[in-house]
């Protein structure tokens, strides 16, 4: 099972670690029977931030530093709802937001979602976008492809 009481990879095969979904439901309770009883909802298939941090640790120990950092950012983003997540991504695409809008996004990430790592990434992007003229220009960019039909 665990080594120094630390979970071991693969988590799914580590008998000593009970993985839970974001809902708090234990993995062993995510079953066809539970679906048949109508007990499961979307949150039962979402990963918990703790689990992502464990995976980040495995990645770092394996020498995959940047992947570990990505998984740490991902742990923060578990708090962001789907629609919001899509909007944030959209904001970061080139020419979508002014410098001020990007800074506002960074602040929202930091304050509302307690996501300092993502906030730092967005602030850095805001700085580079300004320097490289990747902030919003007029006329405004075309709407999202999904809205065109």
């Amino acid at each position, binding site marked *: 099972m665990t080594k120094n009481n630390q979970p071991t*990879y*693969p*988590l*799914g095969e580590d008998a000593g670690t009970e*993985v*839970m979904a974001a809902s708090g439901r234990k*993995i062993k309770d*995510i*079953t*066809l029977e539970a*679906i*048949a009883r109508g007990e499961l*909802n979307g949150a*039962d*298939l*979402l*990963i*918990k931030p703790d*689990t*992502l941090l464990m*995976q980040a640790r*495995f*990645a770092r120990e*394996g*020498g*995959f*530093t*940047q*992947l570990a*950092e*990505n*998984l740490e*950012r*991902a*742990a*923060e*983003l*578990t708090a*962001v709802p*789907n629609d919001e997540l899509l909007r*944030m*991504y*959209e904001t*970061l*695409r*080139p*020419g979508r937001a002014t410098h001020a809008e990007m800074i506002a996004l960074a602040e929202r990430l930091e304050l509302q979602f307690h996501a300092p790592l*993502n906030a730092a*990434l*967005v602030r*850095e*992007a805001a700085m*580079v*976008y300004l*320097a*490289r003229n*990747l902030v919003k220009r007029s006329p405004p960019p075309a709407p*999202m*492809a*999904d809205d065109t039909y």
Partner: protein
Amino acid sequence: MTGSKRFAILAERDINKETFVEPWPEAGLIVTDSPFDPQPSLRIDSAQHQIVELDGKQRADFDALDFFIADHAIDLNVAEEAMASPSRNLARMLVDINVPASRIRRLVAGCTPAKLCDVIRYMNVLEMMIGLAKMRVRRTPANQAHVTNKREHPALLAADAAEAALRGFAEIETTVGVARFAPLNALAIQIGSQTGRGGVLTQCSVEESLGLRIALKGLTSYAETLSVYGTEGTFVDGDDTPWSKAFLSAAYASRGVKIRFTSGTGSEALMGHAEGRSMLYLEARCLLITRGAGSQGVQNGSISCIALPESLPGGVRAVLAENLLASMLGLEVASGNDALASHSAIRKSAKLMLQFIPGTDFIFSGYSAVPKRDNLFGGGNFDAEDFDDYNVLQRDMQIDGGVRPITEEQAIGIRRQGVLAIQAVYAALGFPPITDEEVEAAVLGHSSDDMPARDVVADLSAADRFLAGSQSMLDIVGALQQRGFTQTAAAILEMGRQRVIGDYLQPAAIFMPIPHLELTQPRYHVLSAINDVNDYAGPGTGYHMSEERWKEMQRLPQVKSPREFIKDQVSGRCERLVELGAAKESRHSEVIVAVGPGFGTALTRTINGVDHEKVLEAILTGVAREGLTARIVKVYQSSDLAYIGYTGTALSGSGIAIGLQSRGTTVIHKRGLARLNNLELFPQSPSLTLEIYEAIGRNAARYAKGEAVRPVPVQVDNWARLRLIVKTALLHRRETEEVRDKPPMEMFFDWEPDV
């Protein structure tokens, strides 16, 4: 001018349908070493702990990509050491079995894009292949399939995905012709693949936001086409920046979904922003962005642009180089071989070997598991019609290429299960029904040409409602379970559970099935660079396929047992051919027909099924037409044709003998010639007919009479040897079993020529 006939034929060859051009660096049409590529350089401001010069550019002049690479992709602790290491030493470390991958990867972490290219400069393809075998992050190689069809038919998608999963592909990717089909295509692939083999990862390649929405619904388990580019202009045209891509990859991971980036030589030149840099240099930048953004891996190897590097000198080498660079950087590599790269079967196969032999995390980033004409990726360099070829390549080289042979019966069975499952889900979710006629067509069909038409407008509006609505993976699992597709339901749910566990977010993760578990509870064993570390360090190390896997690869449906091969050559012994006593020399003007030890007894027909008695009749007729007689002797001491004929000459009154092996191979020999010399040799027994045997008899008689002889014309069929070599070997073996230590025997043949 009168042209050369040979050049006219060459001009028609498949290879000459390709475009070949000279390099043009200004347009980015150069694969490596553009005169405008920068020299490697790196300067760190230690106070700021910041890179202030990257490949000859000062921080003040950085473009967005330089900033991202400098601040995210390069390990400052090792950068100075790495940049000071001679590139040739790094190249040599890659092929040195005494240098572990981890030592190389530590230094590579400190290399700039130009430095990485400088290492490649010292390497030929063989050395790069060794490097790739060593640096690939996952020990076990695997493969990815493309499943699409031009009609976007859900039943056919499900059937093809089920078959591809059963064929062993670890990932299946689909895409769309019409973007609105995305959720339905993703659904069909998911249901098909999880029916074929639980644990296959699936994705639907679409625009980035749409891809994320589909993943959020639980319809895909990974995303691959997060495209990155090597120049700022191209990146922006691709509607992203390194930061938006980094955010996107974290967004996917936050929902437990695996991602890999996509890059590849040629895209910048194709999109008009190459800035005069070589394709490999720009790809090195892409790879550092990929690593910096925290993607676990990359799909590269030129991908959809492959024909562009292939139009240039060194293009295929450069494509291998980009795979190698990615693996050096610790990235999972799905190594191209997907888009149509060549008209020439020789060229496409040769190119494949560069990834197939070393093995990569995914040898193809899309083997087309459908016919080319149904491949919506512009692909199908290898397609469903090449399945048998690919299986044979694995068997030939004893290389695990990630695929296994299946029987027709297995394919039909699994396709039916997959299609019935999607039919049930369509019914349960209220989508336009899949009819029984469509089910049958998809089970037995090969391409979308075999499918009945669907109401595309109705399908698309169902797709829109599905995407916008709240139905998700749970509803699909519930529907499958309710309608009795428990195994598929459990397999899809398990993919959901794996999202919660997150093990497959690690580099190069795939799922292997764990057999013999409860039907309702499939569990998958994850293999990734964390628990399946590639430990290749020379012969006897690294990936070694199991005995079971090797047997599976050998089990081609078309393999036959050689034991039955020569049954057609054996019937009852020839009744009219009777052995008398030891053969004696004669002084008559005659021809000896010396037959092999199995002739007319152990074997009774030639390789192409001619009765031995008929062969003798033909030869004897030919001799008789020239007014001579022939004696038949059986040579026992050897099954070798030259020996048989040679022995005959010693007994022949004229010194002329015909040697005849049971399989039909014939020689006309003459006393006084060296044993391995002859007058006429007929080595291609499959093309010897009774007419030719008669002509042989006739010529032998003419030699015996001392006449000038025109050799018997024979057909040359070089394919015969290829087709029949196993049979030839077995017939010869059978004849050799009849060899005895006894003198040649006189044979009585109860037949008179009618001349």
